[in-house]
């Protein structure tokens, strides 16, 4: 191609300077992407965490024994009582590598009306939480290990928790994790406990057996996405089939959820999960009318 003008433009284009830091950022992006693909233990690091105003503030009494915790309960509940009774913190600072982590690991106690600890239910939840936090810590440590001497990782991991539901029927513990590298990523994991039985439940437990709750909720979310985009052109979700593999194609049973103060189901998605990164964490409240005929009694209002 013998076109002088194009050749000169090409020369200039090739001289556009690429910042040195880009390589580190790209590598961090690759690492993060790899980590999020591993759908196993780390995958349940989930969507991110804005704190809704309605959220119940939780006061943590360190090392309060379950019996004392029970004594402090004023109102007897239906069945089990779930409380965060203690927490430990994993803290690490590596100044030379510019890496930092602070991970709070809550411990709960599930007790019956008489204040006796239900040890199976308590252990089940605590084990899950510990495994989850362990995954966060492990991936941080492997990031630290992968940094060569004299290089900076520029990574800060922070994980905290809160109780997002505590009504007559349900208790939900939400763990919010942010990983700040050159950009930032946020994850949420929510554990829901049925206070009637003390068991940890998943989405399907809220609905009648064999009901089409996944389809109905997915359709409702898709509807809300479309409405939101129409109302505000700045809002965007992965709905059109623009990029292979990014289109929202329904929720799965392992999706993060909690029940809000009004008793409505709220679905929580990770950053990047259903929308571009700038949208951050995305939550959808599902009107109870959408699923009213398939709700199992007492979970949603």
């Amino acid at each position, binding site marked *: 191609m013998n*076109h002088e003008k194009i050749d000169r433009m090409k020369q200039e284009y090739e001289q556009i300077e690429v910042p040195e830091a880009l390589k580190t950022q790209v590598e961090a*992006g690759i690492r993060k992407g790899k980590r*999020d693909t591993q759908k196993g233990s780390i995958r349940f690091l989930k969507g991110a965490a804005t704190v809704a105003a309605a959220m119940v503030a939780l006061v943590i009494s360190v090392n309060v024994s379950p019996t004392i915790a029970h004594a402090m309960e004023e109102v007897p509940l239906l069945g089990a009582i779930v409380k965060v009774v203690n927490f430990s913190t994993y803290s690490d600072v590596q100044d030379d590598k510019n890496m930092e982590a602070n991970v709070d690991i809550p411990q709960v106690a599930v007790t019956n009306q008489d204040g006796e600890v239900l040890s199976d239910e308590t252990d089940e939840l605590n084990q899950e939480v510990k495994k989850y936090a362990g995954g966060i810590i492990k991936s941080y440590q492997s990031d630290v290990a992968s940094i060569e001497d004299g290089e900076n990782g520029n990574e800060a991991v922070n994980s905290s928790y809160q109780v997002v539901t505590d009504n007559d029927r349900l208790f939900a513990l939400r763990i919010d994790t942010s990983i700040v590298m050159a950009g930032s990523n946020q994850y949420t994991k929510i554990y829901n406990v049925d206070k009637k039985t003390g068991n940890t439940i998943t989405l399907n437990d809220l609905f009648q057996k064999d009901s089409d709750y996944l389809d109905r909720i997915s359709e409702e979310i898709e509807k809300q996405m479309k409405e939101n985009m129409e109302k505000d052109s700045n809002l*965007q979700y992965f709905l059109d089939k623009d990029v292979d593999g990014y289109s929202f194609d329904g929720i799965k049973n392992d999706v993060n959820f909690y029940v809000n103060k009004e008793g409505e189901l709220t679905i929580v998605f990770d950053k990047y999960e259903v929308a571009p990164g700038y949208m951050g964490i995305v939550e959808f409240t599902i009107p109870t009318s959408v699923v009213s005929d398939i709700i199992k009694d007492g979970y949603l209002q």
Partner: protein
Amino acid sequence: MKKRGIAKAVEQEILASYEQLYRLAITYVKNEQDAMDVVQESAYKAMKNAGQVKEETYIKTWLWRIVINTSLDMCKKQKRIVSGVFIPEEAKEDVYKDWDMLAALEELEERERTIVILKYFEEWKIDDIADLLKENPNTVKSILYRSLKKLKIKMSREEIA
């Protein structure tokens, strides 16, 4: 096994081309920091979704498409921020200060500019550009012809191949 092979290939493709991807991104978002964010986010998305690529030969167009879409998302975000905060016009033009020739690209629409860049700076084949943009090759040629005209570069239709 196969999936792991694809993921490895995606990673290699990113590491081999991130500087080129950055150059394309900066023609969209017009500043260093946002272009870096675009490339990082694209690398993240590509690795996270590598399992969805069916054949290794698709990786390259798929990756560039992610960068283009992520750049467009970033442009939307910029608009959103700009509506709340005052950003002087000069900041936007600053990026072209050393590029007399490239400034001409601003005459073009995003799509036209991308086609010119891919065809003449990155030396892609028309068919591959058509794949990337999900367009008919003839449409790509027409856009290219129109773009060159805008740039006041004389080239016959036959030369565009």
